[in-house]
């Protein structure tokens, strides 16, 4: 296995001489842009970043207080991302994971360690523009120190064929007074098969907010399984799931919130819109082990609200246009 840290300076990013590297890099940057990523961010020496193509670490940029170590494995990479205690990272750390080939496996095993009182955002783009039979597996471990904040936004782009299996699992340990905000978006292109599994253990006064937004079509399958355990006094948790499915796609949302300590407060909010022959399921599970804890849930599943539809149609939009605006708004 090879280890990589900051292999080149940003200035030489576009002029590097290794032609194979340049080809790979150019291809992945195009895919990164297709997924909504900003290439300019990868060229800035003030923004920490990493670019991973299949099992190759093409680019790493560290900044003071943010350390990224990555090593290649036969099927992917193993990464260790550390943010020093007390560090306030001004710009989100940009991560790009992708594969250009139509087939293959990419297995990403990252460990995030956010030091006490640190504050950092991550903007990850996962892009598989040509996927026909491709598997993207992620097994993340996250530890957020006392009073630290981590915001992680992940956007996916899977191309038009729906040939991707995305299987991310994460376990987050949130220490006292810590904050974790996670947003997962898969709203452009086809989904393929996506199974997200996330577990968060929240200590006293910690706050966890998990958001999943996905739009499935054709034969896509979306499964989101999220668990928040509010283990410490006054811990708070929110899951927000927005899924739209059409054609014959399937959307399944399983959320669990446990209120295990006094003053713990949890809420699960799920909206799923169903069109055509698609199927949506939602299973919220509430577990309360302390008589001073409280967990609530709300779910709305079904067709687009008739009133919303007719309001937009009364402005001159066709029914299809109105449905599209409502779904895009929900997933925005």
């Amino acid at each position, binding site marked *: 296995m090879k280890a990589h840290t900051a292999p080149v300076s940003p200035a030489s990013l576009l002029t590097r001489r290794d032609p194979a590297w340049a080809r790979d890099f150019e291809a992945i940057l195009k895919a990164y842009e297709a997924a909504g990523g900003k290439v300019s961010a990868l060229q800035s020496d003030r923004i920490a970043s990493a670019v991973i193509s299949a099992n190759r670490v093409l680019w790493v940029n560290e900044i003071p207080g943010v350390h990224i170590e990555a090593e290649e494995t036969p099927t992917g990479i193993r990464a260790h991302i550390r943010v020093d205690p007390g560090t306030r990272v001004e710009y989100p750390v940009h991560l790009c994971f992708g594969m250009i080939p139509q087939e293959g496996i990419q297995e990403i095993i990252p460990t995030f360690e956010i030091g006490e009182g640190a504050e950092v955002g991550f903007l990850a783009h996962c892009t598989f523009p040509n996927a026909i039979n491709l598997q993207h597996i992620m097994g993340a471990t996250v530890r957020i120190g006392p009073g630290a904040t981590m915001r992680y936004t992940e956007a996916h782009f899977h191309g038009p064929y729906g040939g991707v299996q995305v299987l991310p699992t994460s376990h987050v340990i949130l220490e006292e007074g810590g904050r974790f905000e996670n947003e997962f978006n898969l709203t452009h292109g086809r989904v393929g098969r996506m199974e997200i599994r996330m577990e968060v253990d929240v200590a006293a006064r910690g706050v966890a907010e998990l958001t999943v937004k996905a739009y499935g079509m054709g034969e896509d399958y979306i499964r989101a399984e999220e668990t928040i355990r509010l283990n410490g006094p006054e811990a708070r948790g929110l899951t927000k799931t*927005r899924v739209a499915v059409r054609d014959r796609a399937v959307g399944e949302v399983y959320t669990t919130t446990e209120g295990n300590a006094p003053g713990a407060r949890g809420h699960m909010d799920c*909206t799923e819109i169903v069109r055509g022959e698609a199927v949506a399921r939602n299973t919220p599970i509430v577990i309360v082990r302390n008589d001073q804890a409280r967990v609530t849930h709300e779910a709305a599943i079904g067709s687009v*609200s*008739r*009133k*919303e539809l*007719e*309001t*937009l*149609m*009364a*402005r*001159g*939009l*066709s*029914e299809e246009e109105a449905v599209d*605006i*409502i779904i*895009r*708004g*929900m*997933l*925005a």
Partner: protein
Amino acid sequence: MNPLLTVENVHVQRPGAEVLRGVNLTVYPAEVHVLLGLNGSGKSSLAYTLMGCAGYRPTQGRILFDGEDITDLPVSERARRGITLAWQEPARFEGLRTGDYIALGMKEPTLARVEEALRAVALAPAAYLGRPVDPTLSGGERKRIELAAVYAMRPRLAILDEPDSGIDVLGVEEITGLIRQMAAGGTAVLLITHRDEMADAADRASLMCGGVVVKTGSPDEVRAYFARRCRPHEETLGAQPWEPVNGDAYKEVVTRGVCE
């Protein structure tokens, strides 16, 4: 002058009751026409019927717009011909920004026109353009945005269902001013309300009771009739006529001729 809207003997059946029982109404181009009536008289049902909403298809009668029979047209087609509706309780839209929502109905959207529409309903564009039209807005804010969207659209016929209810900051005068401004720009306004003072903004008025239009005339005439003949029976007439228990009392008042 030819009428812009003609409603001829329109009947609408809802589950459990006939909510419109032979409505006749005409609205002229650029006219402000107030439709008065107590709660449950069928005003909102008529609004949904005119807009073509699901479940409000006439079982009898027809609706003509600019001479064309639009009775069977869907909502979108009616809107494309220039009809729109501001709902009494407007829908909320997650993720849709106010500026974009207002621009949706405009043929040639411009930021200047969207801002003008917001100012017309006393909302500061800088504060509202980017706000989502979702439950974070108060009821009054949402209603004002609905009025702004209709204003920006420049429709030929704007049906405003109780635009004065639930708005705390904008008073009746501001709303009537906006309506007169729309009419001056060529929009006919069918203003639905149970507040008879709103008739001051109108060119003509009609009164609904028990699912029919019982009187049409000058605003003063209809307003006086409404105050004298309907208000005293507000408690009874205000009940929903399609609920069986209230329905009997409602029918009794109507058939005794109190409102006819």
